[in-house]
């Protein structure tokens, strides 16, 4: 009896600790986003309100509050993310199909290409693209940032798409082929509908990766392209409330994604791990 209670007590303590470690930093963001006045060393703010939220969402314009509307940056972020995602998936779906279904010559080398950007730091890549981008007139432009986002997202798109296709048993396609369906027809009518949920996961993952991309945009886009992460960074130094509002806006899609895909997400999506 004693050991059972001991166990429950220990588990309870662990629960509290994990709860504090996970939600402590998150609640710090939430509190800051609604704090109007918060003096040290009080645990909670003296005055709370939605002034920074209203200002950020463009519902009010008060010159006393140093926060701008986030809609411009939000629009830029969505524009970049939608175009990048569309282009990434256009390249990733054929590539994933080839890797999942064909015996590709030099496959090891091609896989290596798609894995290297995950293994080695990408920052030196951005730095070394910058002079070329400047020469081609792409630095500080939306098309330049889109190219960088495609680079960051493409490997995830290819991995997740490949494993989505691999998860579908090949017998179904063979059956369709054996009754005379062309390869194109089989892909379009049999494989694509079956793999649709996996492809959707891939698309959403790529979209969120682009929406929250920081390092590449920092080198290629600044100071002319302001996406939400760039706006968060530039306000983070002087305005804790405003930065917290943007951070929460950026946090919501990632949390929603986690909650929605719990069941279908597999470890190989995050590093080509098959083990």
């Amino acid at each position, binding site marked *: 009896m004693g050991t059972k209670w001991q166990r429950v007590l220990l588990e309870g303590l662990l629960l509290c600790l994990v709860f504090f470690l996970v939600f402590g930093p998150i609640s710090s963001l939430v509190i800051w986003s609604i704090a109007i006045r918060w003096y040290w060393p009080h645990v909670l703010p003296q005055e709370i309100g939605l002034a920074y939220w209203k200002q950020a969402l463009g519902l009010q314009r008060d010159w006393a509050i140093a926060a701008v509307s986030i809609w411009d940056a939000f629009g830029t972020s969505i524009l970049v993310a939608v175009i990048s995602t569309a282009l990434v998936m256009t390249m990733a779906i054929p590539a994933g199909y080839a890797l999942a279904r064909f015996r590709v010559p030099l496959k090891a080398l091609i896989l290596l290409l798609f894995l290297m950007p995950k293994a080695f730091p990408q920052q030196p890549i951005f730095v070394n693209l910058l002079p070329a981008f400047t020469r081609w007139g792409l630095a500080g432009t939306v098309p330049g940032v889109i190219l960088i986002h495609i680079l960051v997202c493409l490997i995830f798109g290819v991995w997740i798409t490949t494993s989505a296709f691999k998860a579908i048993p090949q017998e179904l396609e063979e059956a369709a082929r054996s009754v005379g369906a062309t*390869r194109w027809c089989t892909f379009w009518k049999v494989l694509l509908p079956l793999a649709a949920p996996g492809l959707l996961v891939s698309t959403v993952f790529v979209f969120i990766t682009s929406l929250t991309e920081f390092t590449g945009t920092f*080198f290629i886009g600044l100071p002319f392209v302001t996406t939400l992460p760039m706006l968060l960074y530039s306000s983070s130094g002087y305005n804790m409330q405003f930065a917290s509002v943007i951070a929460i806006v950026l946090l919501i899609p990632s949390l929603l994604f986690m909650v929605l895909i719990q069941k279908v997400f597999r470890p190989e999506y995050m590093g080509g791990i098959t083990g």
Partner: protein
Amino acid sequence: MRSGSSAAEARGARGGTEGFLPWFLLLPAVTFILVMYVYPFALSIIRSFTDETGSLSLVNYHKAVSLYGRDILFSIQVAVLGTLISTMLSLALAAYIRLSNSRIARLVNSMSRLGIFLPYVVVAQMMRSFLAPHGLLNVLLANMGIVDIDAPLRLFNIWGLTFGFLWKETPFITFIVLSGLQVIDDTYIEAARSVGAKTRQVVLRILLPMIKPTIAIAVVLTFCTIVSTFTLPYMIVAGTPTTVTVDIAHRVTYFGDYRVASALGVFLYLIVGVMAIYYLRRTVREEVYGY
């Protein structure tokens, strides 16, 4: 182009056209990676070995080591510390979740997953407010009497940085390791228990050894991620020492010095070197040859 079609012939496929089809399908993605990744990758190495006249030289490395030697060590320290602690925590957490079927374990599992997809820029802002001298953590500790109210913990250094990495990477490793553990059949655990194995032995002698390769990959990816991350140290580390990624940004944005920045980049490649190559070899081998 014999080699292209011979693979198709070898498995008895219809006609030679399919030999080209996979190439055609892969062409856009591969071309993009070659131009936007491989080319600048090669460029970063070449640039690191050239001086301002364009001739071969080690001057950039000399500068990198003499100006940023301390930071190269700092990057390694943070990566080793972060990887070690997050791996230990993750293994314990994953083993606990696998073996306990209480509601608390399930709750811990769902909570531990929340952070997996949070972007580093959000984590950085979170840590910036949570770990600040007058931030929530210090406020709570001061009110509990653990920290002196006039001398709050200073965390915008290696400790805060490591904490930020732990916050993000522990859920990741736990997720990977737990997926591995969940594949292991219960009979192994029951068999070990029936001959008198304690929980500790079940975990250390049975469960973890069975998924060694999975653990290795998770550890390697975490190490590489910590070394590569720019956002978190850039936003929360105050002054020096700081990470090499922050130095690269300084070198480029303040001095427009791409050569020393590239030399620092090569140091990053070297830090992740062995681990990155292990990851690449294992994943490619598994995909191509199936072992």
